């Protein structure tokens, strides 16, 4: 009954407007970005329809009393618009809200770092922003999956839900060195980054010594990190010889996983080996 009354009043008002030569404007309150929509005008004569927002502006000539149709893909940017009809005797305006489309079409994936040591707790971070086909940020919550797949071994999976279009994750680097694939996925949209995981610091240093003429030939065992990965060639290993209060030091880069050096074979000398903060074994040379 109430609806009928409102309808009668509305009809009467529209008729009154038309009699006065004025125009009216009927349109949806909210549409999805890129969707087709109609704007119904009333009145007579010619007019111009403007749809004005900070991120998009449309203009269309209209015949008052006709429906102005906007095809899909015309109004694509999410936001709040003012729809203005000019012509006739007055200017009418309404508000039109354009919401992002429902489906994800693009991901901005920020991942860091691109290179890090193995076995680092929360060492890898990723953040995504999820956009629709028109590059509108999708504000409604969306499920996101993050996967870090090492060259060998099990992948790490995490799930997150976007808040205002953003989601994030932190992951440990894997125990095995190599190129890991870090993938973010929303719906059918994926984005991939490569994360290089390199061996960490040496875990244990063990050297041996043997005489070679007047010299001692010192050589480490293959140097590995605590996960068993070979420490990269070029890592510096320091050999130190103490003899009667004198100290001599030699820095040697790893070659093929081992460090090798010759030092004077002093009877009673003490020789130590170290790399970074890791101290290896000690040899007391006596003959």
């Amino acid at each position, binding site marked *: 009954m109430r609806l009928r009354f409102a309808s009668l009043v509305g009809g009467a008002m529209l008729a009154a407007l038309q009699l006065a030569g004025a125009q009216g404007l009927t349109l949806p309150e909210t549409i999805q970005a890129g969707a087709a929509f109609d704007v119904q005008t009333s009145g007579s004569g010619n007019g111009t329809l*403007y749809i004005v927002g900070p991120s998009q502006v449309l203009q269309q000539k209209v015949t008052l009393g006709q429906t102005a149709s906007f095809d899909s893909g015309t109004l694509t940017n999410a936001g709040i618009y003012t729809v203005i009809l000019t012509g006739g005797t007055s200017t009418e305006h309404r508000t039109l809200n354009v919401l992002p489309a429902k489906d994800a079409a693009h991901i901005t994936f920020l991942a860091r770092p691109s290179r890090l040591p193995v076995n680092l707790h929360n060492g890898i971070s990723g953040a995504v922003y999820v956009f629709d086909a028109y590059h509108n940020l999708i504000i409604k919550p969306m499920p996101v999956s993050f996967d870090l797949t090492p060259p060998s071994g099990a992948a790490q999976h995490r799930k997150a839900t976007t808040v205002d279009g953003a989601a994030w994750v932190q992951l440990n680097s894997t125990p095995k060195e190599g190129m890991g694939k870090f993938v973010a996925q929303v719906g059918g949209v994926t984005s991939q980054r490569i994360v290089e995981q390199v061996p960490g610091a040496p875990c244990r240093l063990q050297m041996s010594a043997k005489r070679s003429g007047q010299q001692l030939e010192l050589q480490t065992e293959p140097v590995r990190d605590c996960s068993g990965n070979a420490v990269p060639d070029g890592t510096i290993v320091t050999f130190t010889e103490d003899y009667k209060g004198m100290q001599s030091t030699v820095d040697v880069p790893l070659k093929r996983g081992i460090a090798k050096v010759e030092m004077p074979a002093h009877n009673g000398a003490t020789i130590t080996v170290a790399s970074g903060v890791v101290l290896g074994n000690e040899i007391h040379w006596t003959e």
Partner: protein
Amino acid sequence: MKFTGRSKPLKYLMAVLLAIATPLAFGADQSSVQIKPPDVHGPRPIADQTAEAAVRDYLESWQAMKSALDQNRASLLNRDFEGEAKDKLTAAISSQMKAGIHTKYEDRSHNIQIVFYSPEGLSIQLVDNVEYDQQVFQNGKLLVTQPARARYVVVMTPSQVRWRVRVLQAQPE
């Protein structure tokens, strides 16, 4: 002290102080600006200086956007916008020129809160509940004045000297 985690009494105090100080500090027109303490859902705390710089740059971006849309000069966007936000605003200005219109945005109030600081520090997201009037002019004549309340979602990324707006998207409050 860092702005991080959930609201605490000290942070409320900070919000009040910022609300009082902000119109002077950021040189906003006559609009009132309220800044809530950050409530970030990421793992990275945000330093006071970073938060203040992002909010200051965001408010300055509004000034730039208003001038650009009023004067139909896309070049005014260069300092404060990039990416999609800049492309969309530039296209809107171009369409305004073709249609013979320009638009004045009078922002009456801002209520800003930083909600996300990405773990690697490469983006900040904030929301701003804005009350504004949109005035559309055709050939210098005022067509309409439309008051609006919008919740703006903003993503900013750092450039060499300032935070720039990459996403500026309104939705109904």
